[in-house]
C-alpha cells in the first residue's frame, strides 16, 4: 500500500482548526459588540456633569453618578484595608507555618469551596450577620431584654459613631465584599509566596535572621508584585459585584455621598466626616447601573450605558494596572 506523499489528509484538520478559531473569535466578537453597543448608547450622556451630579428620577438628562463613585470608592478602600492584611496573614500561615498539618489541609479545601460559593450567598451572610446582626439589637430582642435599654450604637472619641446593628452602611458592604474576595486573595498570595525559592529563605536563616524577619524582609517583598496583582484583580471583580450589595442594602436611589464628602480634598479638611463615612448609607456604581437599567423610560438606557462606561473604565484601569505590575516584576525577577 503505497500512498502518495501529496495526498490531502490535512483537509479535515483545516476545517477543525477553522471551527476552533471561529469559536475563539466569536467570544471576542461578542465582547466587541457589547462594548460598541454600550458606547453607542452612552455617548450622548457622558459629560463632566454625569460624574458630578446626583441621580435624578424626573429629568434623566440631569442624572449623574457622583453618589455611586464615592460609594464604590469607600467600598474599595475599606475592602482593601480589611481583606489584604487578613489575606496575606492567612497565606503566610498556610505557606510558612503550617506545612501539611491537618488543619492547614482543611483550610485549603475549604478555601476552594468558598471560592465556589455564589456571591449572592455571601450577600445573605452579610445581610444576616452585619446588616441585621441576627436581629439581636432590634426592639424587644435579646439585647434589650438583657440590658434593659435599646442599644443603637457605640460612640467613640473624635465623634466616631458605630451603629448597632451595622445596618445598610458602607461598612456592611465592605465586610461582605471582603469575605467574598478573601479566598481569591489568599490563593493568589499563596502562589506568590510559593514562587519565592526556598534557597532564599535558607540563606537568610543561615545569616542569622529569624523566621519572621525572613518573611518580612525577603519573602513578602519578593512576593509583593504577585500579591498586588492578585489583590487588584480581585478588587476589580469586587467593584462590579452587584448582587451581594443589593442584599446588604446598598440604596438603589440615593442623592448623597457617604458623610457628604463630595470632593477628594474634603477627606483631609473634614476629618470627622472621613472617619464616619464608613458608617453612612451609600450606593455603588453597579447598583446605579442596575437601577437605571430597570427604568422604563428610554432616556435611562443612555444613562445606564454611560454608567457602564464609567464602571468598565475604572475596571479596565485596574486590570491594566495589574498587568503592568505583573510585567514589570517579571522583567526584574528571574530566579
Amino acid at each position, binding site marked *: 500500500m503505497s500512498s502518495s506523499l501529496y495526498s490531502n489528509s490535512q483537509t479535515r484538520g483545516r476545517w477543525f482548526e477553522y471551527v476552533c478559531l471561529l469559536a475563539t473569535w466569536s467570544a471576542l466578537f461578542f465582547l466587541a459588540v457589547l462594548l460598541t453597543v454600550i458606547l453607542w448608547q452612552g455617548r450622548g450622556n457622558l459629560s463632566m456633569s454625569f460624574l458630578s451630579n446626583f441621580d435624578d428620577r424626573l429629568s434623566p438628562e440631569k442624572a449623574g453618578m457622583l453618589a455611586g463613585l464615592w460609594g464604590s470608592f469607600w467600598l474599595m478602600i475599606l475592602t482593601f484595608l480589611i481583606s489584604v492584611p487578613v489575606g496575606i496573614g492567612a497565606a503566610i500561615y498556610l505557606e510558612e507555618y503550617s506545612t501539611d498539618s491537618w488543619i492547614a489541609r482543611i483550610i485549603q479545601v475549604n478555601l476552594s469551596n468558598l471560592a465556589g460559593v455564589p456571591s449572592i450567598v455571601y450577600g445573605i451572610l452579610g445581610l444576616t450577620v452585619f446588616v441585621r446582626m441576627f436581629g439581636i439589637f432590634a426592639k424587644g430582642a435579646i439585647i434589650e431584654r438583657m440590658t434593659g435599654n435599646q442599644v443603637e450604637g457605640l460612640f467613640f472619641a473624635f465623634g466616631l459613631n458605630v451603629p448597632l446593628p451595622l445596618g445598610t452602611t458602607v461598612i456592611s458592604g465592605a465586610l461582605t465584599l471582603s469575605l467574598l474576595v478573601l479566598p481569591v486573595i489568599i490563593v493568589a498570595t499563596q502562589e506568590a509566596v510559593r514562587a519565592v525559592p526556598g*534557597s532564599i529563605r535558607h*540563606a*537568610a*536563616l*543561615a*545569616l*542569622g*535572621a529569624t523566621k519572621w524577619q525572613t518573611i518580612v*524582609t525577603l519573602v513578602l517583598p519578593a512576593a509583593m508584585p504577585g500579591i498586588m496583582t492578585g489583590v487588584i484583580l480581585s478588587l476589580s471583580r469586587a467593584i462590579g459585584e452587584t448582587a451581594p450589595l443589593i442584599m446588604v442594602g446598598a440604596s438603589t436611589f440615593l442623592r448623597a455621598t457617604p458623610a457628604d464628602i463630595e470632593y477628594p480634598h474634603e477627606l483631609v479638611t473634614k476629618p470627622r466626616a472621613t472617619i464616619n463615612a464608613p458608617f453612612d448609607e451609600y450606593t455603588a456604581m453597579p447598583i446605579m447601573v442596575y437601577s437605571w437599567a430597570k427604568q422604563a423610560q428610554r432616556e435611562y438606557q443612555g444613562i445606564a450605558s454611560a454608567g457602564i462606561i464609567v464602571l468598565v473604565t475604572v475596571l479596565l484601569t485596574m486590570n491594566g494596572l495589574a498587568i503592568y505590575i505583573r510585567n514589570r516584576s517579571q522583567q*526584574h525577577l528571574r530566579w
Partner: protein
Amino acid sequence: MFPTMTAEKPISLKPQVPLREPSAATDDVQRAIKLETRHLDFYYGNNQALHDISLQIPERSVTAFIGPSGCGKSTFLRTLNRMNDIIEGTRHTGDVLLEGTDIFDPRVDVVALRKRVGMVFQKSTPFPKSIFDNIAYGPRVAGLKDLSRLTEIVESSLKRAALWDEVKDRMRDSAMALSGGQQQRLCIARALATEPDVLLMDEPASALDPASTTRVEDLIFDLKSNYTIVIVTHNMQQAARVSDRTAFFYQGHLVEVGPTQELFTRPKEKQTEDYITGRFG
C-alpha cells in the same frame, strides 16, 4: 564589634601555579579545636543519614569533605549550624561542640549560632535586593541601623570577598544582575558581614566556570587566616588545592580524616584509595 573588618586584606602567599602544594608547613602548628562532633547520628524520619561521626575541625584552617553523592556531606555540614532544624522530622543523637559548647543545648540561641557559623550554598542565593542591601542583610537583622557602620561593613566584606573593585560603583544595582561567579562571591561576602568565625561552604564552586572557580578558591585560601572554613566538594583537585585537612565520607560514615596531603598520597583505608583513584563503583 567588628575588629577584623577594617584590617587590610592579608597578603596572599600562595604560589601562582594552579595545583598548589597543600600548605603542609602551617599544619605543623598545633591548632585549637574550633568545632567537634562526638558520635553524631542523624536521621531523616526513619532514614539514618549519618552514623557515629566523630570529627575535630581545627580553627583557622580549611577542612574539605569529600565522598560520593548521597553519602551525607551536606547533611553533616548542615548539622554544624543547625540548618537541619528547618527540615521537619529530623533528629540526631550525639554532640556537636563549638569551642566546647554544645550547640544543641536548649540554652543556645540558634539565631546567634548561625551568625557565628556562616554558610554559603552550592547555588548562589542573592536576595532580590541591591548589592548593598544584600551584604547589609545580616547586620541589619541583627539590629544594626547606623548607616555609616553598615557602609563600612559592606565595603570591608566585599573587599575580603575580592568583589569590591567589580561592584563598588553599582552598590544600588540589583544583585540579581551580577554574573554567577560574582553572585557566589557576593554570597560569601554576605556571610562574612555577619562576622562569623566559621564558614561552611557546600560545593561553593560547582556551578561556576573555571575562572570564577579559581577566584573563589583563591578567596578561600585568603580567608583561612581569619576564619575556620569547612568546604564540601566533589572536585578532588579542588580539595587538594585549598584544604589543609580532608575528611572522606561514605554511606553516612566518616571513613577517614587527616592532613590533605597524607590522605591523597597515603590513604589508610581501601575505600578512600578506591575513591580518590576513581576506581569507585
